[in-house]
């Protein structure tokens, strides 16, 4: 299959290794990855802040960038939710509504794509560590992705998966919320980060680099041991 990579802007600038890992896993499974350099940001920061007219301009642009693709796959539940759930709302009643719905039907979150679209759970990875999985809220509740990443992790050789006591609690990132209401955001990081750290895991696996930024930021400041790692990076790991 020809897969178009949807690389969120902060992955592009701050976590390029995640994008590379996505491509590496998909290519190992025999698929072709494309990256359309015209893509920029999905517009979620403006959308969430209430500036929908501003966000709409970016949405129309992004729908155009991904026109004619077979499948669009992104390594962020949050940004994928923007394309799949919120673009059709944002562009409802505009001439771009049909195109938005069409793109929504072709857009997938990385782990979900592997399991639901490609029907793969074992990607041939090995990762000899104890890990826990952090559910990002947009993936969990906007895209309803919960079992897929766990199915993928369970198939990884030498990996031990443990659950924390607050698997469905939010890490408190919430985009601009994290800096507009930093005290609440940090209190939420304490709760979720604390719960994840108590599992005594080596890594916290996530499908959302924005949650990773929040959790790592707090864990690092607290001097707590585990760090996050993106699901794609775990799945990219092999013996070779």
């Amino acid at each position: 299959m020809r897969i178009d990579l949807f690389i969120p802007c902060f992955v592009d600038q701050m976590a390029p290794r995640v994008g590379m890992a996505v491509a590496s896993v998909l290519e190992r499974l025999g698929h072709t990855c494309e990256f359309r350099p015209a893509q920029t940001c999905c517009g979620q920061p403006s959308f969430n802040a209430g500036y929908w007219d501003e966000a709409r301009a970016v949405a129309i642009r992004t729908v155009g960038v991904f026109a004619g693709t077979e499948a669009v796959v992104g390594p962020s539940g949050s940004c994928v939710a923007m394309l799949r759930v919120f673009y059709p709302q944002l562009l409802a009643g505009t001439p771009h509504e049909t195109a938005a719905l069409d793109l929504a039907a072709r857009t997938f979150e990385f782990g979900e794509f592997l399991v639901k679209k490609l029907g793969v759970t074992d990607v041939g990875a090995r990762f000899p560590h104890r890990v826990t999985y952090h559910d990002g809220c947009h993936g969990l509740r906007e895209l309803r992705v919960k079992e897929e990443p766990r199915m993928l992790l369970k198939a990884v050789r030498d990996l031990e998966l443990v659950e924390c006591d607050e698997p469905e609690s939010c890490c408190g990132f919430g985009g601009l919320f994290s800096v507009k209401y930093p005290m609440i955001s940090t209190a939420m990081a304490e709760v979720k980060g604390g719960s994840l750290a108590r599992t005594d895991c080596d890594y916290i696996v996530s499908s959302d680099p924005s949650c990773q930024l929040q959790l790592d930021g707090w864990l690092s400041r607290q001097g707590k041991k585990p760090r996050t790692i993106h699901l794609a990076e775990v799945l990219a790991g092999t013996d070779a």
Partner: protein
Amino acid sequence: MTPLPTGSATHPGTDIAAPRLAKKKFLHDAAEHVRDTGHRAFVRKALGGYYTTRDAQKARYRDYEQARDAASLAKWSAVNRLDELLPRFAENFTANGGQVHWARDAAEAREIVLGLLRGARAKAVIKSKCMTSEEIHLNQAMEADGYGVVESDLGEFIQQLRGEPPYHFVFPCMHVRRDEISDLFQKHLGSPPTSEPEELTMIARRHMRRLYVEADVGITGANFLVAETGQISITENEGNARLTAGLPRVHIAIAGIEKVVDRLDDLAVLLPMLATAGTGQPLTCYNTLYSGPRRAGECDGPEEMHVVLLDNRRTEILADPEQRDSLHCIRCGACLNVCPIFKNVGGFTYGTTYQGPIGSVITPHLRGLADWNHLSGASSLCGACTDACPVRIDIHHHLLHNRRNAARTAPGRFERLGHRLFVAAASRPWLFAAGGWWFRKSLGLLKALRPPLLKAWLATRDLPPAPPHSFRSQWRRR
């Protein structure tokens, strides 16, 4: 024995004199509250058991999701036919011997109740749990007119003694420790110290029994108004609402207009859903239908029964098709119980009658978007509330809708400029990539300079160093 405090007159927060200060106060109180880790842990623990009992009850439904659909549909069909159902309820309630009063706003509702108290030559009033009375600040108005008012719900009674508003609109004193309640009762009721919940309940009960008999008027809320039969349905766990409604000469129920449902059958799904979602019970201990005052030949019940139907800007929500479903709310409190914001900032920080996610959605409608939009902003949009809602209100998306409406009507000048610049860059890939390059290269400098938003981040969280190359440049070179 210390006399009863004037109670709600001293409520901090339910009525901010200068509402423009609401956001400032929210930010201040939130910052204070998150530092109180002991309190936060106590509230988390108090709500910890809720998940277990609720999930056990949910599992007893053949299909809980379908029950949510049915409950949502019952409310949807009622809310969309208020023009038909409210007059039908009024007609049937009147036929049952009750009297209906329509209140456009809080002031009218207070006047109606005070008028009824004067007409009844009342001295003492007993009141069971009623959030609409909190909404219209009824206790303060009654006390100002010289009436003695006592809350008969245990949690509300405790809050009244403490001089605080409800912390949570279903669990009013969930933040209060048992030893604090014991101290409070010692001080106000002269009771011996105890840490046994049963004993504390009995102390309040002994105190309360006499008051039911002495009260001339009993005021209650209403969970549902059944249009078909003209009955009022009240859900409770203590039996205090029955005594409040049944013993005094006059019973006044105050209810928002959205409480009406079409048929008695609707309660078959709504009562268990309210209990399951709200408290994790199959049904609450008491569910009573009140069908009018005492009739000829009956030996008990009030001589007069009144219902005050309160609009207080609910029709503004009704006029907004996008957020009309927030009138489905049955005030179960499930969205508060699961909300990470509520659990971390506490009930008082909101400064509203209705706390938590649903309060953040409806308060801007009830009290003005300009002053209360910050509650919609104070959310990570995690959506736990929407998943918990038994009547499927699209709660967290309505927070987005409020943010959008606020940005449209009163945009922050600098904020809008910021988003416009961001969008202008995002519309030009070369500029966006250049901006990204500049950001990566100057991140170290930015960390040292700490401009406002970055400063807020770095106060509690680290930021990783920027990688040398962006994804796009790595991809180009591979």
